[in-house]
């Protein structure tokens, strides 16, 4: 079978079975690597680090990489578009349903429970990012209590949080400032 068709098929399948965000596609990407040999497992591990640190949805980053390895530029486009087609169809069906039943009392009740849960999920995810950015758990394990808190990072975090709440500029402004400071100061 043509490589591009295979790519489309494999990533369409991955998209449908990835539930819970991009990293959930990882087992499927390993499986594709084993069966198809488009990329190695160690290439994939490097790619996770890049996918997590460059902008964009992690799943789309991974699919683009795998697609590029298998079929060049066209491969990268086909893989990432195939990944999103299945879920998009499903979301459109749900969205249609949602518009019709939005004012329904029971649907409202379900969302009453979902909204605090979303805030909680994001709080937990934020805790994960803060744990590696502002604190060093490794230093604590080796008994280095002073090394546990990254003071420079915490100070910048406090200033940034104040600025974000006060000035309400576009998020890119803060990202750019911190990128430049990161290169100059080294956190």
């Amino acid at each position, binding site marked *: 079978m043509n490589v591009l068709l295979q790519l489309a098929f494999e990533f369409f399948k991955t998209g*449908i079975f990835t539930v819970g965000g991009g990293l959930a596609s990882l087992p499927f990407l390993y499986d594709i690597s084993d069966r198809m040999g488009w990329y190695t497992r160690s290439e994939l591990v490097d790619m996770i680090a890049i996918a997590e640190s460059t902008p964009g949805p992690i799943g789309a980053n991974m699919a683009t990489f795998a697609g590029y390895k298998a079929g060049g530029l066209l491969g990268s486009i086909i893989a990432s578009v195939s990944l999103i087609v299945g879920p998009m169809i499903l979301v459109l069906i749900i969205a249609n349903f949602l518009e019709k039943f939005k004012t329904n009392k029971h649907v409202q009740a379900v969302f009453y429970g979902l909204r605090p849960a979303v*805030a909680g999920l994001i709080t937990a995810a934020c805790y994960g990012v803060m744990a590696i950015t502002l604190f060093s758990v490794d230093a604590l394990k080796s008994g280095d209590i002073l090394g546990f808190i990254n003071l420079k990072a915490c100070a910048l975090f406090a200033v940034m949080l104040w600025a974000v709440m006060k000035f309400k500029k576009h998020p890119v402004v803060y990202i750019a400032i911190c990128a430049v400071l990161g290169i100059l100061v080294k956190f």
Partner: protein
Amino acid sequence: MNIYLQLFLSFFRIGGLTFGGGYSMMPMLQKECVEKFGWCTEGDLMDYYALGQCTPGLIAVNTATFIGNKTKGILGAICAALGVITPSIIIITIIAMFIDGFIDIPAVANAFAGIRIAVCALIVSSIIKLYKGGVKDMPAFIIFAVVTFLSIFTDVSPILVVVGAGVAGFAIKAVGGKK
């Protein structure tokens, strides 16, 4: 400007400036979709985000599809979803083509260390907004606290968490409604 182009460009910006996956997209979504263009409300965003968690696919793309569809139907959804993944295709293809050991370059690693700090601050400010919008009474606070605790300290799947919270909301309103 054409609304479809606007959707595409807006989600192109969101995709191109989201570091760290779907959840860090929230500050960008609030800025572009709620404050700048008024395509949806803060409450809509939370609903879409919750549904985006438990439907298959990428959370960012699912949320984009919901917002695009609400604004301009299926074509709007396609524009928004393609917009959100296009920066990935461009950036990752360039990295895969030209740069070996990209994250090991010192300047890149240092810049990302700085960016992560900005991301922390942006997410915290988003959480404050979400908290104010979604947690208005005691039962809601308990759901918030339980979800936060479970997600930090256990490996429980977010899908289970979302389904459980939905059921809890339904039950609380059913009991409260009978009084």
